[in-house]
């Protein structure tokens, strides 16, 4: 059993972080250059961590599998970033942001972590503006804000619909500066394929160069993983095609615990799947629900009809019907599940029957076509590009899609996993969003972790490590890890079976979406736990990976990632099966109120489930970290 000590500082909530910073050990400036830190991933969390640590004086090596750090998927976030600046004078405060995030996470996040996040949120905006992030401004030249779901104040900072892009490019510019100054050694096209643990501490990684195939060992005094989420387990998601769980999964297999893997966020307004060739789902901003009305045909036989010919009387505005007070603006998870139910009843729109309508005809009547264009023109353009349909002339078709994973590697208050020396930042960890993430909070967390948390907590760990005590790259552990990686590649390349990696990924995605998607049941999850081990075995026996290991081989890269996804999918199902309650993004049909809302069981499940690897095909150990709510009362999440 792993020991899960959250290391939450004592004292009043608002003083914990300040106190912890004072209590943390420091590394003397002259000694900092003697420590090497490896950062894997260069999205918001990775780039900001690498540049900050380099600026402090540590020797930093940064590894990214992309051809440039600027490609990381943080770039795709649209809406914005929250910060408790209270520029709108509308009653925002650190406490309110903390409270909204805790409540939004359905009381499954750690109070102390979330409060720290809210505290540093204001510094993030300062930092980004100083770097030149062109946030939206008012005519007076001051920063503009907009409101976002789950909050009653206007605290979201944004840069058109490309906030993630601008924040990532800001962090990338800081990383580029430190690379240019020789403070960071940047390795692009370099995928981490194993974590090396020596005497119980993370002391290095094994890297495969994706261009030459060379497998190399890299030693360090600490390893930081900032490799993002694992939503591509579902194959179809709003994630980038290459987003993967390999780094965190290989760390899991080296002893790091995986916490709450079943917490996945499904976003209600995405463009539906058009065919089985599909590789990617595209998000349509949640803001559309402010003026669009969601409906499905009342009669099954209307489902395939041109929606504009269906008379008003035959339309079921189901969100307005089921949730009269919140209507189309009900929370993400509720809207998603309602849409799914309509489609399950056979009333889904489009060729596939998996879609509902998001109709702007009333808004066009009210605001005029130009009024709607002013508000949503760019989104309507994206929709038109993808579907060739004009949402001005006919309703949009939308369907929920996997968007974010709240679960991840378990970390303590220092963002260190249960493997000492292994730190996990951003979406890759589990700590701040509980069972559901609020909009505009992912960007906040990534940058908070990298700029303002890890610079303090890494020092605290390194101060306990003797300078120069890194193991040599030819030690047994490194050799064994490298051999493990080489053997895996070789096995994939020599199997020469009858199915492509992509075909397996599709099959995995279908199992996960059907059984561990928006609504989960005991039977479904048990069925998935039968299917997934079989799929895993079939994969290893019959996968076809063409080409060789010593050149660019995208099939080989993908093979390793899909192999990990299959194993991770199994763990997600196991976690979902064990968590006999509904909370946030985890909805068990057995546990709901009459109105379809999540029914939590704080008594039995007011805790973090952190799974510990025992071997492939073996049941992992479920460790528990109790969530002690000292300052907020766990209550039924209610947006009505």
């Amino acid at each position, binding site marked *: 059993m792993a020991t899960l000590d959250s290391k939450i500082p004592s004292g009043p909530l608002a003083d914990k972080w300040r106190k912890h910073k004072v209590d943390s050990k420091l590394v003397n400036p002259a000694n900092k250059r003697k420590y090497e830190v490896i950062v894997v991933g260069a999205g918001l969390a990775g780039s900001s961590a690498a540049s900050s640590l380099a600026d402090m004086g540590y020797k930093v090596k940064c590894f990214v599998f992309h051809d440039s750090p600027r490609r990381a998927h943080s770039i*795709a976030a649209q809406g914005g970033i929250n910060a408790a600046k209270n520029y709108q004078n509308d009653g925002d405060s650190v406490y309110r942001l903390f409270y909204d995030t805790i409540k939004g996470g359905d009381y499954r996040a750690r109070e102390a972590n979330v409060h720290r996040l809210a505290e540093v949120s204001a510094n993030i905006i300062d*930092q980004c503006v100083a770097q030149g992030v062109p946030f939206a401004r008012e005519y007076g030249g001051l920063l503009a804000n907009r409101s976002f779901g789950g909050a009653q104040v206007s605290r979201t900072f944004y840069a058109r619909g490309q906030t993630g892009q601008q924040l990532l490019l800001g962090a990338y510019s800081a990383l580029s500066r430190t690379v240019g100054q020789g403070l960071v050694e940047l390795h692009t096209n370099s995928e981490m394929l194993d974590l090396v643990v020596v005497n119980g501490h993370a002391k290095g990684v094994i890297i495969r160069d994706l261009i030459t195939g060379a497998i190399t060992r890299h030693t360090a005094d600490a390893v930081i993983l900032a490799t993002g989420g694992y939503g591509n387990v579902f194959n179809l998601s709003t994630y*980038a095609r290459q987003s993967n769980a390999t780094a965190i999964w290989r760390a899991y297999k080296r002893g790091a615990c995986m916490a709450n893997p079943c917490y996945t966020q499904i976003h209600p307004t995405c463009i539906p799947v058009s065919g089985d060739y599909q590789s990617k789902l595209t998000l349509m901003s949640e803001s559309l629900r402010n003026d669009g009305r969601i409906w499905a045909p009342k009669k099954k036989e209307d489902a395939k009809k041109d929606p504009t010919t269906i008379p008003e009387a035959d339309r079921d505005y189901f969100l307005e019907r089921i949730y009269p007070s919140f209507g189309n603006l009900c929370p993400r998870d509720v809207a998603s599940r309602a849409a799914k139910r309509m489609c399950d009843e056979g009333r889904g729109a489009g060729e596939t029957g998996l879609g509902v309508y998001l109709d702007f005809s009333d808004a066009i009547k009210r605001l005029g076509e130009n009024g709607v264009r002013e508000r949503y023109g760019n989104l309507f353009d994206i929709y038109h590009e*993808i579907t060739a349909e004009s949402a001005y002339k006919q309703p949009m078709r939308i369907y929920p899609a996997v968007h974010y994973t709240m679960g991840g590697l378990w970390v303590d208050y220092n963002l260190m996993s249960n493997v000492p020396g292994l730190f996990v930042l951003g979406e890759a960890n589990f700590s701040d969003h509980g069972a559901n993430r609020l909009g505009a909070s992912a960007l906040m967390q990534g940058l908070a972790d990298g700029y303002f948390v890890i610079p303090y907590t890494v020092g605290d760990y390194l101060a306990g490590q003797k300078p120069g005590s890194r193991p040599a790259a030819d030690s047994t552990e490194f050799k064994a890890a490298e051999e493990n990686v080489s053997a895996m590649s070789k096995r994939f390349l020599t199997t020469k079976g009858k199915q492509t990696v992509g075909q397996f990924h599709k099959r995995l995605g279908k199992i996960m979406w059907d059984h561990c998607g928006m609504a989960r049941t005991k039977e479904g999850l048990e069925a998935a736990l039968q299917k997934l081990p079989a799929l895993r075995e079939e994969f290893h026996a019959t996968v076809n990976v063409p080409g060789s290991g010593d050149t660019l081989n995208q099939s080989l890269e993908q093979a390793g990632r899909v192999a990990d996804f299959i194993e991770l999918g199994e763990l997600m199902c196991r976690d979902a099966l064990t968590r006999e309650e509904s909370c946030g993004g985890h909805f068990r049909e057995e546990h709901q109120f009459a109105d379809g809302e999540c029914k939590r069981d704080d008594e039995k499940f007011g805790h973090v489930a952190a799974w510990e690897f025992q071997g492939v095909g073996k049941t992992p150990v479920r460790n528990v970290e109790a969530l002690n709510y000292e300052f907020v009362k766990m209550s039924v999440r209610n947006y009505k």
Partner: protein
Amino acid sequence: MVAATTSSTISVTLRVWRQAGPKALGQFKDYAAKDLNSNMSFLEMLDVVNDELTLKGEEPIAFAHDCREGICGTCSLTINGKPHGPGKGIATCQTYMRSFHDGDIIVVEPFRAAAFPLIKDLVVDRTSFDKIMQAGGFITARAGSAPEANAAPVPKGDSDLAMDAAQCIGCGACVAACKNASAMLFVSAKVGHLGLLPQGQAERDRRVLAMVHTMDEEGFGNCTNQYECSAACPKTISHDFIARMNRDYLGATLRSAFKPEAASSGGGA
């Protein structure tokens, strides 16, 4: 209104550049892509072709891609001679098969430029862009040292214009489209973005001189003001930023030639 929910089916011939490695000899090879749903994206079509190739025991076509929503800048195909394909203001991944007709022969090539050496098939190495950024594409602001965000107001017009430039996704289509493989649009977008903001002024001269110097060193060509770059740009970034950079460069050159420098820059900390 004809809804595209009803899809049509087309078949095309792909004429794809195949090259096993940087030093290998490349050539075009034809592949039949049959019965494609017109709602497929171009990259999804390549996924399908690649699955077929794999099952036939051939090596799939290597191509770069990631987000598939036009923002990461990874995808980089030249389709029928135009970087990112026939559409305007979109990336390769936002190109759909409905832009083509049944029976078309589609020529697919990598982004070609000496500063983007080919890695394999349709994948090129755009590290040169990173090097330019490392030389000066930043405002130095260490974490912890930033002043209050609203301390310096930025005129909305400047901020919006900076955002126009900042939208660059670093894909390299400008270089690929330019007959001289010039990176002027890419570099000028960053110089323009940071130079328009008050917080970017301290390093303004240094930035433009260093970035242009590195751009030249990396072997990009020169601008002949034809503006193919902005026409191919998936974010339709204006070549006005090139003019702005030229002006900045001239100003920085004159200032650095005539401005006195302190006898010592060290000391203090």
